[in-house]
């Protein structure tokens, strides 16, 4: 298994072969997770610290469960309400943590690039659990696994990503990944929620949702991140729902077997109709959550193998 990476900081640095390797291993962990005894010792003896500088329930729980199923000692640090409030810098926090010898560090931070900054200062493997509006690689990987299992492939699909692209790290990571795996990407949303120069990323941009959904194999809805809004990006929630909320009528423009995805947590009645979200024939939203645990197990397993190999190499050097 070839996965030559020390950290998982973003999709930007992953070649297609690494993505495939990771998804193949994640498939095996899906099987493990469906067994009665869901335990492996791939991370036995290793310490995993989850550091969330931004509140999260779902992603943190998913990483915690993934670590525990692989036998790691998992610790959660709710940094949002600790030393950072006392003026400690990110680098100081990193150095303090590093002195505790963790093996895997899972980090979420509200500033773009902050996780990479931290990764440069520590000796362990770092997984980016979301940095600002930059990347959220495990989300894109779990989306890819969900799509691959539903459609049998990741290439030559038409994937429509709808909503608040500008503030979304999920969108950025998905665009990078799906581009790399040779699918067609359409971005749908009001122009105020489109990042500048996005057409240069190899995406088609649509203002009209029905046109954008036409013939799509995958419909990926994004959360309208209310907490990110300075105010005034859209006139009102109801107008947004009218133009960009996914309902049965709009979904009818997509391919008949199109799947519906959402990274959660959902705002029912803002970006997605409750009935669509719950339609077991179309919605794969629950599968996404399931794949999330498996993908994070695979990512931590692969990084831990590299970590052990690197340490082994060091020991050999010393002995020779």
């Amino acid at each position, binding site marked *: 298994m070839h996965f030559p990476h020390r950290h998982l900081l973003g999709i930007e640095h992953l070649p297609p072969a690494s993505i495939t390797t990771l998804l193949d291993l994640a498939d095996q962990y899906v099987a493990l997770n469906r067994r009665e005894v869901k335990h492996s010792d791939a991370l036995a003896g290793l310490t995993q610290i989850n550091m969330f500088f931004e509140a999260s329930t779902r992603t943190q729980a998913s990483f915690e469960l993934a670590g525990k199923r692989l036998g790691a000692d998992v610790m959660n640090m709710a940094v949002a309400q600790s030393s950072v409030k006392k003026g400690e*810098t990110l680098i100081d926090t990193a150095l303090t943590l590093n002195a505790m010898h963790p093996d895997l560090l899972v980090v979420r931070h509200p500033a773009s*690039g902050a996780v990479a900054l931290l990764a440069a200062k520590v000796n362990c493997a770092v997984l980016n659990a979301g940095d600002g509006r930059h990347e959220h690689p495990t989300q894109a990987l779990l989306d890819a696994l969900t799509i691959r299992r539903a459609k049998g492939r990741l290439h030559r699909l038409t994937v429509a990503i709808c909503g608040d692209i500008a503030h979304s790290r999920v969108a950025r990571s998905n665009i990078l990944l799906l581009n790399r795996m040779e699918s067609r990407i359409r971005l749908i949303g009001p122009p105020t929620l489109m990042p500048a*120069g996005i057409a240069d990323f190899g995406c088609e941009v649509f203002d009209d949702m029905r046109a954008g959904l036409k013939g799509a194999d995958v419909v990926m809805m994004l959360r309208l991140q209310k907490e990110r809004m300075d105010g005034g990006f859209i006139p009102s929630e109801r107008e947004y729902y009218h133009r960009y909320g996914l309902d049965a009528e709009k979904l009818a423009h997509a391919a008949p077997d199109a799947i519906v995805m959402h990274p959660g947590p959902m705002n029912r009645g803002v970006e997605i109709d409750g009935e669509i979200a719950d339609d077991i024939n179309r919605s794969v939203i629950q599968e996404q959550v399931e794949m999330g645990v498996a993908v994070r197990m695979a990512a931590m397993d692969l990084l831990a193998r590299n970590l052990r190999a690197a340490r082994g190499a060091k020991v050999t050097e010393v002995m020779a």
Partner: protein
Amino acid sequence: MTATLLQNARLIDPAGDTVTPGSLLIVDGVIAAVGAEIPLPAGVRVIDMGGLHLAPGIVDIGVKVGEPGERHKESFRSAGQAAAAGGVTTIVARPDTAPPIDTPEALEFVARRAREASLVRVLAMSALTKGRAGREMVEIGFLQDAGAVAFTDGTHVVTDTKVLTRALTYAHGLGALVIGHPQDPGLSRGAAATSGKFASLRGLPAVSPMAERMGLDRDIALIEMTGARYHFDQITTARALPALERAKRNGLDVTAGTSIHHVTLNEFDVADYRTFFRLTPPLRSEDDRQATVDALRTGVIDILASMHTPQDEESKRLPFEDAAPGAVGLETFLPAMLRLFHSGDLTLPALFRLASLNPAKRLGLPQGRLAVGAPADLVAFDPHAPFVLDRFALRSKSKNTPFDGARMQGIVRATWVGGTLIFGEL
């Protein structure tokens, strides 16, 4: 009488637009003769320059020195040493200190500290409004008497146009120079990058380059209304240039500068969130950089400045958008500027017109000329000598240079202020 003859030099004359082999005679701190054949007075000390280039020292408008308030970032002593090593002989200090320089007393403090500690000449600017808060104008008359050479709130744009109009009108009555930062404060709020593909890929809060033109347009209207003497500190985008050119053509008393970093670097240099490349305004696209270089060549932009902004490690070791903006630029001024010479964009006389002659003219100083009667503020350098910059070797207290590890060409061998050798050995 003390007399020194600098012989066998290549004389860069920005006013005459020439580079000629020859000698330069300094008598009592003033240039007494320039040319190929100079009659030797008795008792003159002769120095063989060995073919080095000799130019008028750089006059750098907009240098941040950390006094008062942030002496750990830069003092007049360290700034003076850095300047001398970078070919800068006159520092025009910014008032955005803590507290800001907005009273004659504060200005006199700066003048005293500079006299005590700085190797190079220091001229001080004052804030335009009290506390740089944009509400009330400072005592422009008293401050002028105390030696303020210009009035600026720096990157704090005066948003209240009524306040600004009155300040410009009052300044115009006294013939004072006002320096503004062209930027629409609303559009640029919270921005750490220039909007476009790169900022989107990196997920950084960004501002459209149009915000610069909006700031420029607004100020030009007010200049037209008040007749004020006005200088734009940094023009960095293509979209702003036609409006600037038009304003000049219409006879307004307006000039513009740009920063050495914006004409030698672009947004892609930020790469993986390198915070030493976080500047105000943010680095621009390559198209904008090239347009700005063209404007330097055609004279639409008059002045090149370092916008020297020392920041300590703590202010920079943060996520990109949280990091303090600014870069040090005094000591790298000459080699950075020479990048435009080596790339074939600008000649040596043109560069010294932008860095020495034009800023001196705008401030009404006798410097910036290689002419009889001008102060002997000079820099001798080898434009081709290569080196790799090591930021820890900088003389500034702060080491936040974007050129760390960069290959550069051009080393200052000697610097004189008023005929006194303050840097180098000859």
